[in-house]
């Protein structure tokens, strides 16, 4: 029998537990609806994002320095951020390594002048993988600030040029520009208050909501793998153990289970994605970016489910362990990953957690694609998939197989 036949049989078996499979696939619907109706509005009215960042400003231009200082000071005073100025990139990066900062912004020399000359000004962002959400928040906030500020400066310069052509002196122009920039910064810094938001970044509601939606996606995918976990456990302690099946013959059954589990999880995504799209106006073009992430997430969670299912003799034990493991992982990813001062091993686990990578992929790909971060997360998921598959295969062959 070919692998395809095994996959087909296994899909029939997974979906043969009709209620379980239907629950796994359709359960996200009420969850997404509840999220959209109740939680999303709360999040949308949320407070500003808290960011723990470092800033390395190598640009000595007065305007940019003034603007950055004011933005940073404003955020710090509002309690939205702790931003530390660092003398060089190395210091900032070591802060990230130590977990003292989530993100480092490096403003290279001449950035302001380039922007004023209409050239492309590139600022670099460095971040720890476990703080990808912070990085996104910080980067978007700074880029938005620079963009608005730059546009304002251009308008002021054009106005100054026009005034100069009409006889304004150099001294008058300088005074005019300084006053205008001060006004510009003042108005910009208070724009949040004008529309009832806290802080300059204006990231609170929407970004939290995007992040929450991504967590919802990843969590529902993981919980959809529970039938895989349960059935694997039943097989290993029952059907496959009670007959004399040679361990070597189980490989096809094992890989068929991972693939059929993947299909089950993808069915969950197929239900969730249109709902999320309706809820948050996710761009249709983002589907292309999300799809590989969905497939790899589904493969990884399916392999993990087979591993957990292979480790336990009792189906209920496997489910309880899966539930606690999943819940702990998602709580960690959601609430702990951006906290500095975690024990080293916990911080490392957060950094390489496939749960974090999965959440990061969805929050990234569905809303604001950062290719570098996307690739990193995909690599983490791929490594986790390989690890879970190898460990799962070992456990699957050993667990419940009569002695040889």
């Amino acid at each position, binding site marked *: 029998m070919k692998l395809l036949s095994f996959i087909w049989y296994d899909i029939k078996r997974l979906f*043969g537990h009709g209620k379980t499979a239907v629950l796994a696939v359709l359960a996200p619907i009420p969850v997404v609806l509840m999220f959209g109706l109740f939680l999303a509005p709360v999040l949308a009215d949320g407070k500003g994002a808290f960011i723990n960042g470092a800033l390395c400003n190598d640009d000595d231009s007065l305007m940019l320095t003034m603007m950055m200082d004011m933005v940073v000071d404003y955020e710090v005073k509002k309690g939205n951020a702790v931003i530390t100025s660092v003398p060089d990139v190395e210091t900032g990066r070591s802060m990230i390594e130590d977990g003292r900062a989530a993100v480092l912004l490096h403003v290279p020399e001449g950035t302001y002048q380039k922007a004023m000359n209409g050239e492309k000004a590139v600022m670099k962002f460095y971040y720890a993988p476990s703080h990808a959400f912070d990085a996104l928040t910080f980067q978007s906030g700074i880029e938005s600030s620079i963009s608005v500020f730059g546009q304002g400066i251009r308008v002021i310069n054009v106005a100054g040029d026009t005034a100069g052509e009409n006889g304004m002196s150099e001294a008058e122009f300088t005074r005019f520009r300084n006053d205008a920039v001060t006004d510009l910064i003042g108005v910009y810094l208070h724009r949040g208050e004008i529309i009832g938001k806290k802080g300059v970044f204006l990231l609170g509601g929407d970004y939290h909501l995007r992040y929450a939606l991504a967590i919802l996606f990843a969590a529902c995918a993981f919980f959809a793998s529970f039938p895989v976990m349960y059935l694997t456990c039943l097989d290993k302690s029952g059907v496959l153990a*009670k*007959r004399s*099946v*040679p361990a070597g013959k189980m490989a096809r*059954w094992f890989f068929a289970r991972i693939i059929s589990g993947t299909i089950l999880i993808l069915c969950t995504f197929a239900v969730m994605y249109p709902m999320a799209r309706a809820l948050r106006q996710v761009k249709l073009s983002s589907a292309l970016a999300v799809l590989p992430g969905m497939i790899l997430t589904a493969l990884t969670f399916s392999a993990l489910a087979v591993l957990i299912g292979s480790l336990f003799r009792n189906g209920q034990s496997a489910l309880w362990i899966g539930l606690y493991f999943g819940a702990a992982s998602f709580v960690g990813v959601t609430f702990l990953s951006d906290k500095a001062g975690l024990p080293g091993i916990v911080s490392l686990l957060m950094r390489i957690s496939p749960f974090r990578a999965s959440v990061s992929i969805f929050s990234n790909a569905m809303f604001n694609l950062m290719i570098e971060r996307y690739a990193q997360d995909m690599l983490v998921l791929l490594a986790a998939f390989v690890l879970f598959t190898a460990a799962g295969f070992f456990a699957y062959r050993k667990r419940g197989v*009569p*002695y040889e």
Partner: protein
Amino acid sequence: MLEADGLMKRYGKCTVVENVSLSLNPGEGVALLGENGSGKSTLLKMLAGILEPDAGEVKIDGLHGKQAKEKIAYVPQDIVLFEELTVTENLYAWSSLRGKENTDRAEYLIRELQMESFCKKRIDRLSGGQRRRVNLAAALMGNYSYMMLDEPLAGIDEQGSKCVAKLLKDEKDKGTAMIITEHNPTILLPLMDRTLRFDGGHLV
């Protein structure tokens, strides 16, 4: 030839099988009789390689372990089938798990055990007796020269029992050796060459 020497199995402090030795020649049939809890099923599982003995060893045609196990078809007392698949799919799957898919063998067993009327049905929609017949058929998929059958007629009606008996006789005539445990040996006992009584973990 199957040779068991000094087999012993303990569960905690309770010795279920103690120092049992027996042999089974090719084509020979042995009925293993005994009360409930006497240790028959445990002995059968050790002979089939499903359960590891605490002491002693089993050799089949001079082979141990994995190679020996591949020569044995084991029919467990429990229903051990893929409940969500049909009868035919179960037979195909089990033949693949035991070697290569053998559709001819599956069709032969469906015919011999009179399962045509329900072979397209899922296992979880069959009656107890029907499931028993599929349970037996699933064990007989694959290449083997020894059979261990743990109460193969339990829950099967008279007509079904006759089908099973005929099938086992055919298998035996082809040279397959078998050990059968059965509480009601009237149908299968005439097929067997000898009878062993098992009591308190010993052959008596």
